[in-house]
């Protein structure tokens, strides 16, 4: 695979605050790459540096092997779908899409042909002469994509493009974006704070936090083999406990020695152990590798989410078996369900469900919606 963009040791500060700390990243032709992380992790800044809207303080940006640090945005073969679209309110749908071609002085009938083609790609053929302000969020989103794609970029940058859409529409657009990416063969660099979105759409996920890249990998890699507690916690649910590596393939935690599939650690090295809630089997108490008391049970539709107190540490377990609160149960964990991680600055910060209470469950849909809005609003201040 051909490298299309390389970031080499990029650092960037705003008002003395370090937003990007020595980031290096290779982006390959035709891939769907997602920058994933919470607000303020530097993902949007990374995108803006690639787009040419910010200059890195240190480091180089390479485009097909050439340094482009000093190339202004309008001369880069990269286009952007902006957060909340940034459509031109004084132009109709057609003229928004035609914008880049008019700038290039493309002949009129050629513009007409390409705009028509683009509008049918994003399924807006009947909306050509509508005002953009009269469109729904999803439709505006499509116009923004068509407007960027018509310039035939090598790379398309998408800055939280689905953040303002409701859940159903977001799912549809995820599929559609993926389809468009396949059809056009353009490299997509997608920024989001939604881990599910990142996992379903991407070829490569780049997990970021505190201005640094925490892990780069395929969605299955970052889910199954998180490299530190931050990644394990940010992507999916995780029980993260302190453990000690006794020898290769043997780890001890929660007072029991487990078989595992990891090796290459020092003998007696302190490690973080990750066990996904869905990978824990509930057995009779006397058969369990670990024993505990159920403190809460929540029905989630497909499964129950239960919290189990094991020697003071609360585990989350997802199971289809019904258990009752205060029941004593045993837990069994297969070797390949155990992921061992080196200790990091994030050790001890995540993966304990003792603060996880019924109250958190009672957050209504509306409140969650507001929370998300709040989060996406926060993104604006990130840079």
């Amino acid at each position, binding site marked *: 695979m051909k490298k299309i963009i390389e970031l080499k040791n990029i650092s960037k500060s705003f008002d003395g605050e370090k937003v990007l700390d020595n980031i290096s990243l290779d982006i390959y032709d035709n891939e769907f790459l997602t920058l994933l992380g919470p607000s303020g992790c530097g993902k949007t800044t990374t995108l803006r540096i690639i787009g040419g809207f910010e200059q890195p303080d240190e480091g180089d940006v390479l485009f097909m092997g050439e340094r482009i640090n000093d190339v202004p945005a*309008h001369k880069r073969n990269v286009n952007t779908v902006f957060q909340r679209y*940034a459509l031109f309110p004084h132009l109709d749908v057609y003229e928004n899409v035609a914008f880049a071609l008019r700038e290039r002085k493309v002949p009129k009938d050629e513009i007409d042909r390409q705009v028509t083609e683009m509008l049918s790609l994003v399924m807006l053929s009947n909306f050509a002469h509508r*005002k953009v302000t009269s469109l729904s969020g999803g439709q505006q989103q499509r116009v923004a994509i068509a407007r960027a794609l018509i310039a035939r970029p090598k790379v398309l940058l998408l800055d939280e493009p689905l953040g303002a859409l409701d859940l159903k529409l977001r799912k549809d657009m995820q599929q559609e974006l993926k389809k468009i990416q396949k059809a056009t063969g353009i490299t997509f660099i997608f920024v989001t704070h939604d881990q599910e979105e990142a996992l379903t759409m991407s070829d490569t996920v780049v997990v970021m936090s505190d201005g640094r890249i925490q892990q780069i990998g395929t969605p299955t890699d970052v889910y199954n083999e998180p490299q530190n507690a931050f990644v394990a916690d940010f992507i999916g649910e995780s029980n993260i406990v302190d453990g000690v590596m006794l020898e290769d393939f043997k780890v001890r935690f929660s007072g029991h020695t487990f078989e595992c599939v990891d090796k290459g650690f020092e003998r007696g090295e302190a490690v973080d152990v990750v066990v996904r809630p869905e990978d824990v089997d509930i057995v009779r108490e006397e058969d369990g590798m670990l024993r505990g008391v159920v403190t809460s049970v929540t029905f989630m539709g497909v499964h129950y989410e239960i919290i189990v107190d094991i020697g003071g540490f609360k585990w989350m377990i997802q199971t289809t078996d019904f258990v009752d609160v205060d029941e004593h149960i045993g837990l069994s964990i297969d070797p390949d369900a155990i992921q061992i991680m080196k200790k990091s600055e994030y050790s001890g910060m995540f993966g304990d469900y003792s603060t996880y209470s019924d109250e958190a469950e009672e957050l209504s849909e509306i409140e969650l919606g507001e929370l998300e809005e709040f989060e996406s609003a926060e993104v604006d201040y990130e840079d």
Partner: protein
Amino acid sequence: MKTKGKPVWGLLGPYALWAAVFIVVPLVFVAYYAFTDNNFTFTLDNLIRFFNDRSQMGDTEVRTYMLIFWRSLKLALISTVICLLLGYPLAYIMSRASDRNQKIMMTMLMIPMWMNFLIRTYAWMTILQDTGLLNGLLSKLGLGSVHIIGTEGAVVIGMVYDYLPYMVLPIYSVMAKLDIRLIEAARDLGCNNYGVLKRVIFPLSMPGVLSGINMVLIPSVSTFYISQKLGNGKFFLIGDAIEGQYVANNLHFAAAMAFILMIILLVMMAFIKKFTNNMAYGGEEI
């Protein structure tokens, strides 16, 4: 503040009274005087006089008040265009400056407005006089002297000076609100600085431009005093004519002229409004 379409009458009362006493009643009086003679019997003579009064100018006979009106309109249009040419770049520069510099520029723009209009006009007289500050400076620099005072140019300078802030402020307020992402989007799609200005900033600032034109053109058509002082009284404007008739106690004719001017301005505003609606986008104001 509209609360669900029901105006709060109690709060509206004082304003309604104020508007009635100081706006509606005077307007009714103007109309009443315009359509009556000294004995307060109905007549159209005053109105007809505006269009028909003739006087000798050199060898030709001219329609006095029509000439004055066209001159007023011409000078107002010239002033408006100059205000736009000066004000637009200034508004753009202001909107792109740092917060601190925006405040400084805004203050500098506003300071002259704190001074009385008469004093400002007198100040321009001392600057533009044949033996004034400007010519003093020019001759010191060995550039000879210019004769400005008493020309239409002097009147235009005075009007531009007075009305420039009214052009800058509405344009500036629209530009300052412009979403920076739209500019980035235009750059992203291949526009250089000029392209961004032409294809995004200018069209989006149109509402500001049009309201600036409104704010400058309307008062400058009816301006007076500046023309007397800076034009040495040679360039009577319609505002001067109304004032002159009023001072001469010709109330009915003064009212007739004011009435006609009002109608003409209303028509002009309607035109500008229609133009604005055609230029508006998204079917709503920004």
